[in-house]
């Protein structure tokens, strides 16, 4: 059964790009061009994830989110917002398990974030994360690959924790940046790559099968060795 996505977006051009990208990724996409149409569809609750434009005719994007949440519908939402419209309400979305993206955005960024929303987050009560031979102890702050203990800096620890929570999933540089540094910023240079490079040299030692992989033009993925 393929994943169902609802796109609520009033600009046909943007909507067209989003629908094309997501369809190419194998999603089953529905498009609603107005807030009221979007709300009606969202209320059916049969979608796995949805993208909602912040500014919509008739019903505002955030109102849609509040509406369906009050009805107990838990479909995760990605709000698309213009730069000037990112206020505390939009920022608050992250706290509720939803996410937002500032226009203009890259389509790979959009699909990576939708992917992240679709995965159930790991049980937050777990204190030891495991991916293949890699273990990360959140309480002892110890990382091991098999029996080898890895000497790791606090920042690298946070990076690895995020990667392990999203194992087998592409995470973009901006997602990593947001989760680890807690600022929303698109580092156009390879800053995150430098941090990742250091982490990778520690995780994937010489002679070991690589676990951290680069995804061209997008970001990284952590996978257990085959």
């Amino acid at each position, binding site marked *: 059964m393929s994943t169902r996505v609802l796109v609520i977006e009033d600009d046909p051009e943007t909507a067209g790009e989003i629908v094309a990208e997501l369809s190419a990724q194998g999603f089953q996409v529905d498009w609603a061009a107005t807030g009221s149409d979007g709300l009606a569809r969202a209320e059916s609750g049969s979608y796995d994830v949805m993208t909602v434009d912040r500014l919509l005719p008739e019903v505002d994007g955030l109102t849609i989110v509040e509406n369906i949440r009050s009805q107990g519908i838990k479909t995760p939402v990605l709000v698309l917002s213009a*730069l000037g419209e990112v206020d505390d309400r939009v920022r608050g979305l992250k706290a509720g398990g939803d996410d937002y993206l500032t226009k203009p955005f890259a389509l790979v960024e959009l699909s990576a974030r939708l992917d992240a929303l679709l995965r159930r987050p790991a049980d937050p009560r777990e204190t030891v994360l495991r991916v293949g031979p890699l273990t990360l102890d959140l309480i002892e702050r110890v990382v091991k690959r098999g029996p080898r203990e890895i000497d790791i800096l606090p920042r690298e620890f946070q990076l690895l924790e995020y990667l392990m929570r999203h194992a087998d999933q592409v995470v973009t540089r901006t997602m990593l940046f947001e989760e680890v540094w807690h*600022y929303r910023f698109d580092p156009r240079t390879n800053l995150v790559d430098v941090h990742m490079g250091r982490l990778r040299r520690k995780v994937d030692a010489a002679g070991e099968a690589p676990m951290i992989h680069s995804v061209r033009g997008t970001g990284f993925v952590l996978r257990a060795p085959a």
Partner: protein
Amino acid sequence: MRLPEFIRTTTFRWTLTISAVFFAAVVVLTTFVFHQVIESNKTRIDGTLVREIRNTVGSDPKIVFQFIQTRLSEDPRRVRLAGLFDERGQPIAGNMRSIPENFVPDMQMYDVIADREDDQGAEKQAAHAIGIVLSDGKTYVVGRNFDDLVALQNDVLNMVGTALPPAAILTLICAAVLALRTQSRIDEIHRMALRVMAGHLNERLPTRGTHDDFDKLVAIINDMLGKIEQLVTEVKGVGDDIAHDLRTPLTRVRAALERGRDGATSLDDLRKAVDKGITGIDQALSVTSALLRIAAIEHGQRNAAFGDVDLGSIVSAVVDLYEPAAEDMGIKLLSGGISHWVLRGDRDLLFEAISNLIDNALKFTPRGGSVTIELVRTDNNLMLRVADTGPGIPVPEREAVFRRFYRSDKSRNLAGMGLGLSLVAAITRLHGFQVKVADSLQGCTIEMICSPAAA
């Protein structure tokens, strides 16, 4: 008929108006002064007449006779009147042939028409007169005629009247000259304005160094022209620079794809070529999205995401992000100063601005150098200072680096540089901060003045 241009100038009209007011004032003033002078003279003369007549009360009629002789003997202007009349009103002495009509000798002043007769002839004179009946029944009258005063007044008014027309002509000439001068300056400005409108934006209006109103106005217009010229040059430059910034990666993409298609012998070779192409296109895309981002910040809904932010913690997060990259480049990244300072702002945009400053500093600093970022207090402001040990920015280029796409010639070969500082400028403007390249002995120092933490 069309009037000469200068007649319609404000200067001409004002000069004429002021002159007209001035002339009217002269006439009114002269008339008033004379009226006052004559009235006070009349009062004084009346007083004298009253005193003279009082002195004769109870005097011997012979002495009165003598009075009359004395009084009339010194009267070259023929203004004094005196007369002694018997009970029937016949003249006994003096220069009056009869007691005037409507006159009563009761020690009161009367306006009369006197019948004068002396050795120079007879005439009727308007006069003030006062009289008394003496103890022997004779009537004694003294008077004073004011024709001399009236004549003096008329003479002066005539003189003023004669002087007015030449003065008016002089005024007209003066007004015309002033108006022509104004007109010539306006014509001058008009000619220059036409040249500016025709595209010669480097033209400036001439000043005369007199620091008059016109010079001040011209200076203001010249400043404005300077600003317009700068903006136009910037806009022109932006067009060229966008083309340049997009052309370089696109040329690379084209070359990579062409080589790949012709030269690839395996699927891997082809993939490499396509990857190169994608890299180039990503570069071109990053230029356009940076432009869109600057536009969004500049025209965006202001203050939408403003909150209390700690600039100190933003600085340390930026330093944390850049430290490994700086280390790889062999550059020391140092930070210091105040560690916490809360102000109103957009934390994400401030992070972006500060990281752009660091990014810029790192790009221009050679291996072995250092980049220092610090928050310092100056007066009531907070200043963020980023200093590097790179080649620095020449003084004439220091303002220009914050313009969109501006690149110092030295940086032409460094990729993706044009927009970082203009993004910083846009973000600083949004916050009401100021950013500039500071004077420094070595390297480049950029200072951002952040307003005091607002409530």
